[in-house]
């Protein structure tokens, strides 16, 4: 057994773990942080992405013992204490950047990491920056849009107004022809 101490989403945990325990299993099975999920066993899908020491890692490819002394942030720790969503979470919601939602925790954490390094990415840079995260539902298009919108918010700019939705908070897609706008992009 290895003695490890982690700070996860602001809470400190001290545990004895079997050295073979993967960080993601430690999070899920010992600490109850089931918001972070496992999607593969070859470090491809990125569903298990968390921030370790402020940088994105695939928690299925980190031993819990390797993480000793580190600060971990998961999707469960992103929102404010008052429940206010992180701009990336909000943008994923507003842009319909998720369907089944299984890749979403990892995708959001990867996006948070990307924007921390590159606050004003191009669409191609967003795509490249998320290359470690697979999504089977969205074709990534709305994810790219969400990350761009979040970036704009995080740069403290007012996001460009889009077609009117049913309410300002939720306005997303135009109801008839988004295509013209897309062609223009």
């Amino acid at each position, binding site marked *: 057994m290895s003695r490890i101490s982690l700070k996860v989403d602001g809470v400190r945990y001290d545990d004895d773990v079997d050295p073979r325990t993967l960080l993601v299993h430690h999070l899920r099975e010992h600490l109850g942080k089931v918001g972070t999920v496992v999607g593969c066993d070859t470090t491809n899908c990125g569903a298990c992405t968390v921030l370790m020491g402020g940088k994105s890692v695939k928690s299925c490819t980190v031993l819990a013992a390797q993480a000793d002394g580190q600060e971990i942030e998961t999707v469960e720790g992103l929102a404010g204490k008052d429940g206010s969503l992180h701009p990336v979470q909000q943008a994923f919601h507003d842009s319909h950047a998720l369907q089944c*939602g299984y890749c979403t925790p990892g995708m959001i954490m990867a996006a948070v990491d990307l924007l921390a390094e590159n606050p004003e990415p191009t669409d191609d840079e967003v795509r490249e920056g998320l290359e470690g995260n697979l999504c089977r539902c969205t074709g990534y298009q709305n994810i790219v849009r969400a990350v761009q919108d979040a970036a704009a918010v995080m740069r403290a700019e007012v996001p460009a107004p889009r077609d009117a939705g049913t309410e300002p908070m939720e306005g997303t897609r135009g109801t008839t022809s988004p295509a013209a706008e897309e062609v223009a992009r």
Partner: protein
Amino acid sequence: MTTAEAGPTPQVGAARSRKEDARLITGRTMWTENITLPGMLHLAILRSPMAHARITHLDVGPALEAPGVIAAFSGRDVADVQGSMPCAWPVTEDTVVPDYPPLAVDEVRHTGEPVAVVAARDRASAMDALEAIEVDYEPLPVVLGMEEALAENAPLVHGDQGTNKCYTWTFDSVQAGTGGDVAAAEADAEVVVKRRYTQQRLIPAFMEPRSVVVDPTGDQITMWSATQIPHILRLMLAMVTGIPEHKVRVVAPDVGGGFGGKLQVTPEEFIAFVAAQRTGRPVKYTESRSDTMMSGHHGRDQIQDVTLSARRDGTVTGLSIRLLANMGAYLGIVTPGVPILGAFMYNAIYKFPAYRFECTGVFTNTTKTDAYRGAGRPEATFAIERAMDELAAELDMDPIELRRRNWIKHEEFPFTTVATLTYDSGNYEAATDRAMELFGYDALRREQAERRRSGDRVQLGIGVSTYTEMCGLAPSRVLGSLRYGAGGWENASVRVLPTGKVEVITGTSPHGQSHETAWSQIAADQLGVAFEDVEVLHGDTRTSPKGLDTYGSRSLAVGGAALVHACERVVEKARPIAAHLLECDPADLEFTDGAFRVRGTPEAAKTIADCSLAVFTSHDLPEGVEPSLDSDATYDPANFSFPHGTHLCATEVDTETGRVRIRSYVAVDDVGRVVNPTIVEGQLHGGIAQGIAQALYEEASYDNDGNLLTGSFVDYLVPGAPDLPHMVTDRTETPAPDHPLGAKGVGEAGTIASTPAVVNAIVDALRPYGVTDVPMPCMPERVWRAIRDAREGAPEGSERS
């Protein structure tokens, strides 16, 4: 239906953002794998490393000695109780349906087949103990290819069946009385295009690995499963194991994608069921990604021989399809039926006067095939859309012009096709015109000509795909005529709570499709309540007792209609109560703008909430009125619905390396009236992405011994964000005449349409080299070989100058 002008904002048609998201973006989701129960055991399954072998020795004894192990058993140990996995769709009277034990008993027939299971106190101990199980195999000959399997003296997948043929199913328009004879058409044809296309094997690759938890400790045995089909699963558990149906409860909690891959009842579900009963304790099994790739069902895997007969003016006179469909080693829930769904779609949007289809299902030593997004229809659409491009090339005609000459004109709907279906509505002209405009078709053709002229290393290709599909599975009578084991209806019920809040219970079972949002929009409009005041319940046979679940783009097309009808019944039940409260005759009331109003005096109004409180107290209800506003409705569609669209793809092909880059992609789809345009667009994005993935990236392949070479995401290339293009999507809207909302269905459209658009674009880029096909996935080497082979075998003049 309400037509609100001044009342509540109509919800249907609005781009509402999703209710589902709140839990999904914060990590508060209930995946099956998140469930932990007191005393729960973890299962690990030993799988066959052999594609075909006799099990000569299997002893789980040593595993029982391993630390933490509570139970272990093999197929032989449970042979009497485990039953045989069900196939609900034997498509012909003589379809061969082999015995399919969840745990192999004597013989294994594909790699990854479960042979033994360990139940332990923790997951790691269960996995460790697998290594202690003793098992010996005597190899048997392996057969992998379909044509090889049908050859004389081929090794048999199921020795006791005497054949590898599962069935042969035919359709002929002469016999059906819908058209002429294809042989005659071919004999008389001025042009005949014969092509063979291979639909490679695909892996659905939903992101959430399948997981199952079984709790045997209550009066009802409860199974949580990452499934698309909780209702069908419950019925199958009862029918296969003999446990009375009412003693089984199945829950599909949050489910992380399916794409047909979770339209299955799985050996692992049955193994967990048996393990829970044997141990008397809750058990959980969660598969690894490699498990699911190796032994979860695959999709496609067909060989298509296409013969298209035509006149030189482009009029197609006959279409003949001969299909081989790989079943794999066993039959899953609808394995034989998947290619048959395609049978009705090869004639696509065209007025072909003669059609023949013949499909032979074949057993091989591979994991079974079954539904994957589109299920039969993408294969059919690919074959016909590829062949139409080949015919256009043969005739030196623009591919869109060829399609125009053959397609059903919008004024000709409803139109009964040569394959017997009656297409409800559509406007192919409008969708195509819009797509061409967005795409800049003429400008791209000019650029293509210029690149050809200059001998550019990177050639430009334009691919066309005009598709339709049948969705809204399905009219029960049609399913019956195709020997499917169930109906195609769907159920919805509505409960109005005392405070006027509403619970909608649906028999559909979403796993990413946004039913909680869309169904709320529908119910809000129908009942005049707020979107936020509707809760949609699903996926638990205890709360949603009746349903046929989610697949085949059916949820809105069938389940949405059931919901509208259930809401209408609530309104009718409320009417006498409202009349009583307003002291008027029920006949004088109209339900508009979300409330009952007396005709002519719209200021006096009673809402559903007013009625629900009156019902709750029941102090003053009219004589003979039942104190309930609840209702349910089961809807059996009279017909399928037929979305359609035109997808255009431009590819740049590096003729030196064979690399393909999608330069632009335009999709104009007509899915009828739209409940939520954001959700529809999302479905199209994802669908198109999966179709592109078939065209360019994905293929499940086996080595000669039957080992899966693409057993992880390292080798099975699911595209990432940099690998997919930005898509331009738009819609035309031709309402479905038979649907109360005019909706058609959108879940599979993108996948069906996109694959041929991409491959047509690649082939179009390379036509000057003499290339007429590139097998899928069109990976760089295959494109390079196609160019090289065409150059080597090409007649003069096809070489670029």
